[in-house]
């Protein structure tokens, strides 16, 4: 009799086990939705947000542009209109709205170039930076101060007052030369134009870097 009873119970065990498995499968639905949690952990993102190391100064960018540093791309996150009006040399326009489009990804999610975001100030550029950093993109930078600071430091540098240090005067001369490179013409430049040209010319010569061709290996 007892055996019969246990046999009856045992008949149900598969149904029972199957029910538990189905219940557990139902539990999977309750797990947090992971597509919402794309990207790096919040704690990591916060520490990145606080850090100031994403900023790159206008002087450095000017220097890189003049020396034709091939290691970075400039991304203009302003709208098309402002981009058409003025943009830094060779900048690529990705308006903030189109930041996460598939086409933009090609530029942002790669590890061949540094990506430097800029906008009028660094407000929108920072936003672009935060979103892209969360997605785990590498080598992202932000131009500190954006085009406003670009204008006040590089394009239109102010003559330091007479009581300033020699370094500041030196910085001013560098910036002035840079602004000439980016198309600004000064009255005193016209008078001594010949000498100016001579100064600018060797710069270009220095910067052209050619890859060395390796001698072919092997062969007969």
């Amino acid at each position: 009799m007892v055996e019969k009873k246990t046999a009856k119970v045992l008949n149900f065990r598969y149904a029972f086990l199957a029910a538990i498995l189905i219940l557990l499968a139902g539990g999977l639905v309750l797990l947090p939705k992971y597509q919402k949690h794309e990207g790096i952990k919040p704690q990591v993102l916060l520490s990145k947000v606080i850090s100031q190391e994403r900023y790159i100064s206008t002087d450095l960018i000017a220097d890189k542009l003049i020396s034709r540093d091939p290691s970075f791309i400039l991304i203009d996150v302003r709208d098309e209109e402002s981009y058409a009006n003025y943009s830094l040399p060779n900048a690529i326009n990705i308006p903030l709205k189109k930041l996460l489009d598939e086409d933009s990804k090609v530029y942002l999610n790669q590890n061949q170039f540094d990506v430097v975001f800029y906008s009028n100030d660094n407000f929108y550029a920072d936003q672009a930076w935060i979103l892209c950093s969360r997605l785990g993109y590498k080598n992202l930078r932000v131009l500190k101060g954006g085009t406003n600071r670009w204008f006040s430091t590089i394009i239109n540098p102010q003559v330091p007052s007479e009581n300033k240090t020699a370094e500041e005067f030196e910085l001013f001369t560098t910036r002035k030369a840079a602004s000439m490179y980016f198309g600004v013409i000064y009255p005193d430049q016209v008078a001594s134009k010949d000498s100016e040209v001579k100064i600018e010319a060797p710069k270009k010569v220095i910067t052209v870097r050619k890859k060395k061709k390796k001698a072919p290996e092997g062969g007969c």
Partner: protein
Amino acid sequence: MKETEKTKRISIASILFILVVIIGLLAYERPKFLYDNNTENALEKITNDDYIVTLNEINNSDYVLIDVRNQFEFEKGHLENAINIYTPEILNDKNSGLLDEIKEKNKTAVLYGNNPEEVNGPFLFLYQLGYENIKILAIENSYLQNKLITKNSEIEKSEADISAFIKDSHKYTSEKLIEEEVIIPPKKIIVRQKKKKAPEGGC
């Protein structure tokens, strides 16, 4: 007899499997902070311009002012009724509790700092964490004789027309300079391909 052994194995295996799943579930620790908004949502939020508050609007009873500067600056001078939550300490128990409380009461947290740029980071960060009732107070704070001075600040205002300035500077020369001397083709990003090795040797 053989058949019962077989069925026993099946039930033992499935019980073990269920045990493993249950242990896994019990051991699973839900991360303390999870994003509630993905980047697309956040981008949508920031491209709609409704998250900026100006100084005249802060007398709204729904707004809770939050100062993201550090304690020293906060104590030196802050807006009336503001709470101090220093950005690096946002995820502290105390501070996230405060933010949760604001969220529960259906109030809007209005963040401010020394300038709007400073608040940008914490704002976007908190939004992605799911604190959706959050805004930025567009002000600039400075001190004059240890007194806090607050004024409205316009975000992303273009201060100068650079192309006009450059064109304007060209009036100094009578000659026409050759423009656009520097033309570098736009960079192309090449998808990496495996390099084919040049065949070595052989005849």
